[in-house]
């Protein structure tokens, strides 16, 4: 049981500060994107979809910044396990927003396509030249996708190091943002070609990708809160750290056999260990020392209960 405020190891603290800075930049940038896109979107369904997607992509950044102010608070009388889960909650919120918006956009775009609405795009006079608004929209889309991709690539390694899911999702979505941008551009160029259906089809494509992201994240967030076994965030493979801890405990000279069980609480792992203690051990002292060793083993192993038992119980019959 730990009562002090949570602290990341020194090298990761630096990474977290950097991640926070990147997220502030992301928010400021997205605000300009959302304003610009709103001004030029006209009656194009693809632009509307891309615009809503951009507006929505602020949610992960904002939740990350809020959560990163709370997660390391000292446990209180009311919250005796600390505040680590705030990241999981923020992640769930973001994924619900994404999923819901994906559904809405899908229906909205499908209706536009079925009703065969022809998008009307006018012109604008810039510096005395008359320009078709479609070109302006494409310029806005370029602005909305290229810097986003760059930010995504920058944030991805930070997210992996910090084992922070919300940051990872945010970075991954931004990295793939060019897909949205290009789809919308194709829609606009299609309108220019006289294909009225291109716009709504592009919108439909974008909605699908939003919905797919939303679904994946929602599933992940729920499984997280259901105390699933810890996974790597980048490929969803089981974290080998859990097995390493088990082997580490088994290697102690006073331990006959052991079985560990861990769950993710935001960035860190909580768990318990069943131990069969060798006869003649001073159990309470050995456990106190064992806990110290575990906390030094890896920063992610944060809160552990060591429990001496007569016989180890298996948690699961099946693998699933």
């Amino acid at each position, binding site marked *: 049981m730990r009562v002090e405020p949570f602290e990341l190891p020194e090298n990761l603290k630096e990474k977290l500060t950097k991640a926070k800075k990147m997220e502030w930049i992301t928010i400021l940038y997205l605000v300009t994107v959302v304003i610009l896109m709103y001004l030029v979107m006209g009656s194009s369904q693809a632009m509307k979809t891309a615009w809503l997607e951009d507006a929505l992509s602020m949610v992960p950044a904002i939740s990350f910044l809020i959560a990163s102010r709370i997660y390391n608070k000292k446990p209180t009388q009311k919250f005796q396990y600390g505040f680590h889960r705030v990241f999981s909650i923020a992640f769930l919120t973001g994924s619900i927003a994404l999923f819901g918006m994906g559904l809405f956009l899908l229906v909205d775009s499908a209706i536009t396509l079925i009703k065969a*609405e022809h998008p*009307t795009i006018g*012109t604008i006079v810039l510096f005395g030249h008359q320009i078709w608004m479609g070109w302006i929209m494409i310029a806005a889309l370029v602005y909305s996708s290229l810097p986003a991709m760059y930010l995504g690539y920058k944030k991805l390694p930070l997210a992996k190091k910090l084992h922070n899911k919300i940051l990872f999702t945010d970075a991954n979505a931004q990295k793939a943002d*060019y897909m949205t941008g290009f789809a919308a551009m*194709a829609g606009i*160029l299609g*309108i*220019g070609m*006289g294909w009225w259906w291109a716009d709504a089809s592009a919108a439909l494509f974008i909605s699908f990708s939003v919905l797919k992201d939303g679904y994946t994240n929602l599933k992940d967030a729920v499984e997280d809160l259901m105390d699933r076994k810890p996974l790597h965030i980048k490929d969803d493979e089981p974290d080998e750290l859990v097995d390493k801890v088990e082997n580490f405990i088994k290697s102690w000279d006073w331990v006959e056999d052991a079985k560990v069980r861990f769950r993710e609480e935001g960035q860190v792992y909580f768990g318990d260990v069943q131990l069969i203690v060798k006869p003649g051990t001073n159990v309470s002292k050995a456990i106190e020392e064992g806990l110290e060793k575990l906390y030094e083993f890896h920063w992610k192993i944060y809160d552990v209960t060591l429990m001496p038992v007569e016989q180890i119980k298996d948690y699961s019959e099946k693998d699933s």
Partner: protein
Amino acid sequence: MLKFLRFGILLLCVFFFGACNFPKDPKNSYENAKKSSLRVGVVSKTDSTQTSFEKKLIQNFAERENMQTQFITDNETELIKKLEKYQLDVVLGGFKKKSNWKSKVGMTKPYDSTHVFFVPRGENRLLFHLENFIHKHQKP
């Protein structure tokens, strides 16, 4: 990254292929007006100063584009219905930017500060030329 490049190249091809006379009309309103005539719906109203002014404007536009004109006078609802079916190219009747027909029609930008012409939805080439005329017509 390769996928990204390929997609970009495809887009460029589409762009160069279609760059001449961009944007196009899905229903070819502009080309058809050139070939036969510009079909203009005029809303029948008691106050007709605005309408006759608009009529003159459209006539100027047609002259500049070497188009014949064909005027049809009827009530608003009928004209909008025809416009929706692409049986008319322009409807005029002193309409304003915030008109209730907004979702059924395409609009030009205002030729003064508030008044607009209606065009069929999505006929972007016709709209382009009409707005070009409005822009040239506006005195700075």
